C-alpha cells in the first residue's frame, strides 16, 4: 500500500528531525488480526505504523487533557482520517489544543469498517464492501482531509449524497414517525440495558471534563445506579453536553458493550442544530460551538 509506505517515511522523518516527539498512529495487534492505537517515539519503530479500513479508532482522543502522560511526551503527530480531524477542529475551537501544538498527518480514506470483527480475515488492502461501512462513511465529505500539515494517500473522488442517507438517518426518520409513547418505550428498552461502564464517555474526544457530572456527588445529580432512571438522566445529559459539538465519529456506539444506538441520538441533535442554528461542527477551528454563542434571530415558536 503506497499510502502506508509514505506514512512510515513521513513519521520517521518527523521523529528524526525532532519536529515531533511521538507519532500517535495505528499498528497491528500481536496476532495481526486487528489494528490498535500505537505511540511511536523512536524513528526505527515507525515501520509498525499501518493504515487500512480497519483503522476505526478516533485517535484525537489521545490529544486531550485526559491523557496527561501522553501530553508529557512532547509535541505529538497524529495519523488522522477526515472524521478524526473534525474532532481536532472542535477541540481547537474549544481551546483545548493549539493548531501548532499538533502535527496532523491527514490520511485520505475510502471508508472504514463499522466494527473490526465484521471484516475478520479479509485482505485489508482491498476496498471494503459497502454494507459493513458505517453510515458516517456513506455521507463523508472529508475523505480528503480538510485540515492537515501533510496529506497522504490517493485523492478521493467520492461525493456524499445531498441529504444525509444511510441506516442511522433511516432509523431516525422511523423514530420521528412513532408516537411519543412508542418513542419512550423504544428508548427505555435501550437505556435499561446500559450498565454504566462509561465507555461512551471515555472514548469520546469531546468528553474531556476533568471531573464528569456523574462523579459529582454533592449533590449527586446523576444517579450512578444502572436502573432505567439513572440511565435516562445519564444519556440525556451526555446528549445535551454534545449538542452542536459531536462530529459523528461513531466511537461511542462502537465502544458500547450493550450496543445502545447512540449515533441516533447524537445525529438527531446534529440535524436539529443544523436546522436551527445552521451550524455543522468540525469544519473550522475558528467557529465557536453553537451552545456557547447565541443569535438574536434564533427562531422559536414554542415559547409563550
Amino acid at each position: 500500500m503506497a499510502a502506508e509506505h509514505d506514512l512510515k517515511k513521513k513519521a520517521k522523518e518527523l521523529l528524526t528531525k525532532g519536529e515531533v516527539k511521538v507519532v500517535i498512529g495505528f499498528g497491528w495487534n500481536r496476532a495481526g488480526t486487528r489494528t490498535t492505537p500505537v505511540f511511536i517515539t523512536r524513528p526505527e519503530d515507525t515501520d509498525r505504523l499501518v493504515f487500512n479500513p480497519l483503522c476505526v479508532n478516533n485517535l484525537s482522543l489521545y490529544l486531550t487533557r485526559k491523557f496527561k502522560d501522553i501530553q508529557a511526551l512532547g509535541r505529538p503527530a497524529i495519523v488522522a482520517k477526515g472524521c478524526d480531524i473534525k474532532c481536532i477542529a472542535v477541540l481547537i475551537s474549544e481551546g483545548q489544543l493549539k493548531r501548532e501544538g499538533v502535527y496532523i498527518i491527514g490520511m485520505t480514506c475510502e471508508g472504514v469498517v463499522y466494527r473490526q470483527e465484521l471484516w475478520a480475515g479479509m485482505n485489508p488492502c482491498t476496498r471494503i464492501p459497502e454494507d459493513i461501512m458505517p453510515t458516517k462513511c456513506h455521507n463523508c465529505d472529508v475523505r480528503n482531509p480538510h485540515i492537515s500539515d501533510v496529506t497522504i494517500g490517493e485523492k478521493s473522488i467520492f461525493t456524499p449524497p445531498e441529504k444525509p442517507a444511510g441506516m442511522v438517518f433511516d432509523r431516525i426518520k422511523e423514530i420521528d414517525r412513532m408516537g411519543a409513547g412508542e418513542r419512550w418505550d423504544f428508548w427505555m428498552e435501550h437505556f435499561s440495558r446500559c450498565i454504566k461502564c462509561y465507555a461512551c464517555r471515555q472514548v469520546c474526544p469531546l468528553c474531556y471534563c476533568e471531573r464528569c457530572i456523574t462523579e459529582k456527588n454533592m449533590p449527586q445529580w446523576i444517579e450512578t445506579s444502572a436502573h432505567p432512571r439513572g440511565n435516562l438522566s445519564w444519556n440525556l445529559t451526555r446528549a445535551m453536553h454534545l449538542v452542536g459539538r459531536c462530529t459523528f465519529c461513531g466511537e461511542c456506539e462502537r465502544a458500547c458493550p450493550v450496543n445502545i444506538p447512540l449515533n441516533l441520538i447524537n445525529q438527531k441533535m446534529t440535524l436539529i442544530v443544523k436546522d436551527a442554528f445552521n451550524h455543522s461542527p468540525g469544519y473550522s477551528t475558528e467557529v465557536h460551538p453553537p451552545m456557547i454563542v447565541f443569535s438574536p434571530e434564533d427562531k422559536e415558536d414554542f415559547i409563550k
Partner: protein
Amino acid sequence: MEKNLPITAFEPKIMAFVCNWCTYAGADLAGTGRMEYKPNVRIIKLPCTGRIDPLFIIKAFENGADGVLVSGCHPGDCHYTTGNYHARRRWIAFKSLLEFAGIDLRRLQFSWVSASEAIKWVDIINNITDEVKRLGPFIEYKRLKEGI
C-alpha cells in the same frame, strides 16, 4: 371545610424555574396584587434563565414533577443582557431531545414573563396546571421511580 374531602382528584405537581429579575418579580406582583391562581406550582428562583441547566428539568421530573415551567425575561430585557438568548438556544435543543426521547412536551413549557406581566403569569400557571391535570400524572417517570 367539609370534614371529609372528596376522594382526592389528581392534583399535578408543577415545578417552575424562573429568573429572579423578571418572572419572579412578575409572580411577586401577582401576589401583592392579591391575584389568585392555582397553588400547584412550586417556584424555584434562579439568577437568570441562562443559569437553568437542563439537568434541573430532568431532576424535577425524576423527583415527581408532573409538569415543569421555565420562564424568564423577554429577549432584550435580560439583566445580564444575553442570559435569555443562551437559554433560548439551549431550550430549542433540549425540547427536541426530550421530544425525541418520547416525553410529552405539553408537560414542559417555556415562557417569557416580564416583571409587570402579573396577569400573564397567572394565566400561564392556571393553564399549565389545567393542561397537566388533563394529561394526568407523569406515570412513565413515576414507574422509573420504582426502579427496575
